[in-house]
Structure formats: C-alpha cells, structure tokens
C-alpha cells in the first residue's frame, strides 16, 4: 500500500458526515437511533453515580433513615473529613498512585506493544509457540502462595515501589489485543522498510508505533486504569505507610471497620467505635475516581488525537 498523504480529518465522522452527499434519510434514522440509545445508556450509567455523590455528602443517620437519594437529605461533610483526617497521608497516597501509574503505564505500554509486534509478524516462525507460551499463563496458575514466595523470598520486593509496578507490567490480554490490532497493519509497509535495510526494532519504533496510535491509546488507558485501581499488590506486599497507594489506603479504612466488627464478635473484645460507613463508602468512590474524571477529558483529547493521527501512514 502506498503512503498516502496525511489527512487528519478523514476519520472524524463530523467531517465525513458533512462530506456525505445530501442529508439522506438513512443518516437521519441512524442519528435518531444513535442519540436515543446512547442517551438511555448514559442515563443508566450516570444515575448511580449521582446517587453516590449525593450520598457522600449526606449525614449517615439520614442515609440510614431515607436510603440513598438524588439530593442530600441532610448535608454533611463528615465522610470527607474522616477521609482527610490525615491530609498528609492522603496526599502521599495520591503521590504513590500517580507515580506508579505514570511509570507503569509508560514501561508497560512499551513492553506490551513490543511483544505484540513480534507476535504479529507473520514471517516470524515461532509466533504461535510464543503466543501459546503467553496465553497458557492465563489458564494455569500456581495460586497465591508460590507467587507470594517468589516475590517476597526470591525477588525480595516486599515494601518497595517496584512491587507495585513490576508484577503488573504485562498482561496477556493486552498483548493479544494489541497483537490483533497490529496484525491489521498492511505488511507492505514493513516490507518496504525492510528492503531499505531498517532493523526490526527500528521498524517497530519508527513505523509501527505511529501507526498503532488508536490501539496504543486504548491499551495505554487500560494499563493506566489497572495501575490506578490496584490495591491488591499493596495489600500483599506493602506495610510501610509511605508506600501505600490511594486505593489501598481507602480500602483499609473501610475494611478495617468491617473486619474489626467481626473480630470483636468472635474474640469477645468490645471496642467503642462509630463510623459513618455508608457515606464513607461513597465518599471513597468519589475521592478515588475524581482525579481520573478530571483528567479524562485531557486523556480523551490525546485519545481522539491518536485516532486521527492514526491515519497517517508512512
């Protein structure tokens, strides 16, 4: 396939819709169906979130009495004041999460796409073997204990920032999805570069990466979200408070209360505690999601940009 000129607008449906000759009835019908269906779906998705926001600002006793409501029945900032009781810890947790997400996404995305590229090369004799090698790990696992031993006893990664990043760097699902995206890049493009004497790595870096921007944006987003939402690795491997990521910090706040209630029952111990659990749960969702939601339009801009530049070939 010959290199075509860059045309940033060609994938933008807005422009394409404009280019379409006349306002045909089928387009109108599709628009009606599209707007209606998407609006209904969006309402389904936003309604619970509004409930959450509202409940997070509601007095706990009022939630107990009236349940979750769209508008706070009795406004209260108590849940947030509990969350931000130790603002320094909270900021630290945000810091850990943000750095882990940034480093992890950058490194992970690079490794994922490099691996996916090799597997997508149709002339690579062992690509099926390696695909199987990777895929097999999604089916069989030795369970928690040996994995834990590996990380703690052999790799000695306990209580390090590395343990929050490295074990999540690669995921077979992302590699394979990326591979399937890359397989759709016409071979002719790499062929011509090869004839010019470019090395495989250079082809990947200079040709494949720019051509895979939609896929990179998507998988990059997935990797970033996985890092952002991860609390499990911290649960297992982090005990130092200044290495705790946000989600684990929040998870502990809530889990500790539930766990303690049960323990008190069974151990016969009695402790006086009083915590607004329902509103706290909701406030935690907001605190954890908020930054992503604020950042999302910017990510999205990059995302949309990625899509349009994805058209540039050669």
């Amino acid at each position, binding site marked *: 396939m010959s290199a075509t000129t860059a045309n940033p607008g060609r994938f933008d449906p807005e422009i394409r819709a404009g280019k379409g000759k006349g306002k045909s009835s089928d387009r109108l019908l599709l628009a009606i169906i599209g707007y209606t269906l998407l609006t209904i779906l969006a309402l389904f998705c936003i309604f619970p979130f509004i409930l959450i926001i509202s409940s997070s600002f509601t007095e706990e006793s009022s939630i107990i009495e009236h349940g979750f409501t769209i508008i706070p029945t009795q406004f209260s900032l108590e849940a947030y004041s509990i969350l931000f009781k130790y603002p320094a810890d909270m900021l630290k947790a945000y810091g850990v999460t943000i750095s882990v997400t940034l480093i992890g996404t950058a490194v992970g995305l690079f490794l994922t796409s490099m691996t996916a590229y090799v597997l997508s090369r149709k002339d690579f004799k062992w690509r099926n073997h390696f695909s199987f090698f990777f895929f097999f790990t999604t089916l069989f696992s030795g369970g928690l204990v040996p994995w*834990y031993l590996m990380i703690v006893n052999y790799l000695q990664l306990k209580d390090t920032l590395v343990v929050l990043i490295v074990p999540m760097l690669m995921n077979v699902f992302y590699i394979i999805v990326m591979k399937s995206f890359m397989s759709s890049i016409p071979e002719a493009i790499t062929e011509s570069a090869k004839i010019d004497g470019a090395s495989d790595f250079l082809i990947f870096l200079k040709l494949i990466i720019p051509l895979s921007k939609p896929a990179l944006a998507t998988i990059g987003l997935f990797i970033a979200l996985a890092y952002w939402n991860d609390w499990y690795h911290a649960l297992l491997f982090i005990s130092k408070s200044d290495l705790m990521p946000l989600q684990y910090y929040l998870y502990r706040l809530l889990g500790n209360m539930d766990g303690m209630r049960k323990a008190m029952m069974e151990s016969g111990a009695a402790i006086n505690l009083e915590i607004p659990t329902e509103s706290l749960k909701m406030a935690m969702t907001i605190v954890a999601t908020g930054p992503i939601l604020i950042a999302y339009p910017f990510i999205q801009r990059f995302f949309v940009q990625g899509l349009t530049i994805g058209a540039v070939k050669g």
Partner: protein
Amino acid sequence: MKQTKKTVTLLLTVFLVLATLLSACGGGKNAAENGGSANAGQGNSGANSTESTDTIDISKEVKLKMLLVGGKPVDYEEVFGELNKLLKEKINATVEAEFLDWSDWTQKYPLKFAANEDFDIAYTANWAFYNDQAIRGGFLELTEEMLAKYTPKTWEALPAAAWDQAKVSGKVYMVPQNSNEVVDKVVLIREDLRKKYNLEPVNSPETYAAYLKTIAANEKGMNAFGAKPGDGWKWHELDEVLLEQQNNWKVVDPNVPFAFKMDDPSGKVFNVYDTPEFTELLKYYKDLVDNGVWSKNVISYKNDVWQDMKAGKFASRAQNLGTLAFNVAEQRRDKPEYEMAVVDLTPDKMKSAAVSTQNGMAIHATSKNPERALMLIDLLQNDKEIHDLTMYGIVGKHYEPVGDDQFTPGPSSTNYTGFSNWGWNSLLNRTDTTYPKEADEMLNQWQEHVYHYPLETFVFDDSKVKNEVSNLGNVMLRYAIPLEYGLIQDIEKGQADLIKQLQAAGIDKVGAEMQSQVDAFLAAQK
C-alpha cells in the same frame, strides 16, 4: 495442532525442570530451618533439665518481632517506644510489631508463615485458625518446662483448664488469655418502648416474643429485631440464647451442627437440627416472622445492625454482653432520648466460662529467640506496668487510671486502640468507668453460677474430616439460615430437607469422628 502439541511438551519440560530446581533449593532451605528450630526446642528443654536454678541468660540484647492483627494505632511509635524502654531494662530486648489490617489479615496471616518471614510472636485465637496453624507447623510447641521457666507468672496465674483448652493433639502452642468472663449471649432491647406498651419485663423467650411482636405491630418504620446473617455466621443470631443456653446445650464447634448436653456425663453429641427442641424453635421463629418481627430481606441486609438500632430502625439485637454494654454506654452518651437495656433471656440456666483460646499469643516455629519471646508474653500479660501500657496506652493521654482496676478514656484514646492487644488479656484488665453498672452486676451474678462440665476443655480436631466439614458449612448457610429466618414457608419440609442435605454432605462421618474424640477425651480424664 501438531505444533501446539510440541509447544505443550516443550512447556511441560521447562516447567518440570524449573520445578525440580526450585524444589531442590526450597526443600533444602526449609529442612535446614526446620532442623534448627527443632534443635532450639530440644536445647531449651535440655538446658532446663540440667539447670535447676532460675537464672536465664539475657546478656545478649535481642530484637523481637511481633505479628498483631488490626490497624496500626496512630500513636504506636510513642507507646511502643515507652514499652521498649521498659523491656530493655527488664529482659534486655526490644520489640517491633507488624500490624495485619482487619481488612486483609485472613489472606496475609497464613502467607507470612508460608514464606517463613522473620517474626517471633504472633497473635492467635480459636477463631483465627489456631488449630490449623498449629497442625500445619506454624507455631512452636510450648512444653511445660519452657512455660514454667520463661513465663513463670503466667504459668502460675492461668488455671490448668485454660492450658488444656490450648492443646492441639495434646500439645500446647499458645499462651492463652486469662479471663474470668462468662460468655453467655444476651439481647439488647428498647426499655422505653417496653414501658410505652406496658409490657412485662423481658426475661424469658416468651416475654421477649411478646415484646418483639408488640413492637412489630405498633411501631411503623421499625423492625423489631435486627441481625446480619450475611456476615457468614452459620446460625440464627438468637440460636445461642434460645437453643443452646435455653436447653443447657453446648455446640462443640460453630462450623458443624453438633452439640452435647452440658450435664451429660457420657458426652453424647447429637445433630442439633434433628431434635424436637429445634423443631419447636423453628415454630417460635416462624411465628415471629409471620408477625413481621424482622425484615423479609434480612439475609441480604448490608448495613450495620448497631448503627441502625441507634438510628431507631431496630428495636432489638443479640450479642455478647461486653459489646451490648458498650452499646448502652454509647446510647446514653449520644441518644439520651432512648432508653436501652441489656437483658438475659435465660437467667436460670447454666452459665459457662469463656474459652481461653478466644485470644492468645503464640511463638513462630522458626523464631530465633523463643525464650525471650516467651518472657515478653509473660510481661505483657502479667506485669502490671507493661500490661497497662500496652492495653490502654499512656497515662494522661490515652487513659486515666481509676483505682487499680478501672480507667477513663483520655483525650486521644482513639489513637491507641483497635488492634489485637486482647491477645494478652488478663485479670489485670481494667474496666471502663462508663461501662454500665448493671452489665457488671449481671456478669458478677453469672460468675457465681458458672457450671463446669466434663467437656469444658474439649476441642474438636477436624483434620480427618476437613472435606465433610467444608460441605456441612455450605449446607448450613444454604439451607439452615433461610429456614431459621423463616423464609421457607413449610418449616416441616424445610427441616427434613436440611437433614437430608446434611446427610449427603457427610454429617454421619463427622458425628462419628467427633464422638470418638469425645469418648477418648473423657476416658483420658478418668
């Protein structure tokens, strides 16, 4: 496909090679450690038999690590800093605690042992997998000589029955708590509502039912009884009161439906669900449900029972005395417009003493300093100064002592609480002055009526019937819970179904195993 087959073969080969490699080094490492700990144990007892004097060599300073359950208290550094000053002086050691949060300790706790991480002491309890951990070799066996030598105060203070309860296949693996608590379950009611409807004082299952039904009929927007079966407890929350205490039964292990009569010297265990008493109780529960005493969705209930009761959505709950007494104290502080009371529905029945293994401290099997670790436990439990410090924090900040056995919470009491320092509960424990008097009186009265029964220290070892026990637990959750909460219309058929399912899950095998253990236990006592 052929290629795939080749790949599989290749993978398997690689996998096997790796496995052998790992097993070689892993096994070697463990064996060495294992030998080491065994030697250490023998060394102790050997040393003890030769040395008759009480001198213990503490010239070398050691650092101990302790595994506790619960969130790390905010003022941990401060309190443990104080503690270490004292410890340095007394046993030339310092201690550092690692806290496993309540949210995830069940996952992390066994992993710490599996990875053989470096720690000397661990909190343990019968409800925190004490038996399993001991059988799996996680704890160091504590011989009588060791205990007498390194934990002299505790050895003296703890009654023999407490040590007996801590035995797993005849060996002690923990230093249990020392508590003279009585563990009967009680209920919390709204005394103001009882008075409002001119009801008789609540003190029996019948008067309680009358109270619940009156509330259900008259108080709109309120459930008469609140419970949270969704937490995974395999019994109705009133079963301990209305089935066990009422009939003078004792359930052997809450994970399987077997009980014995407290005063039955033959120690015959029977299936609780297959008794006329249980059938009667089902009718009692069904009557309550039909009168709307608890929510139809009680099994899926997700909130906190006490919070809801405090908000006026429930009029009663069942719990142990300590917890409910605290509830009353909290109500008096925050909701003076209500009046709540703790009532005993089975005042004339036999009372039973708390199980010592409900809380305790154990030594890690591979601890390098088991002697000093034991000495620390001894101090924690029975040294007044250290006990006060580790239980209540710093005077003037976390608590104020009142006399010798009471305290009032200090200005930052919440900064040192919420973790398992219950592991070293002892008679030195202080009581909160805000603790309701009547609860204390109730406890004192119970203590006079404690009944000591032959099987008091019997502990069921389920290792031979693990599979059956797992399945029985599943059946109890799936069939017994909905039946007891009155969600199955035909209770007769429901009970028959339940018994049938239990049989399929292997209840007879578990019963036979339990009975043989009980018989052996009783025979050994004679």
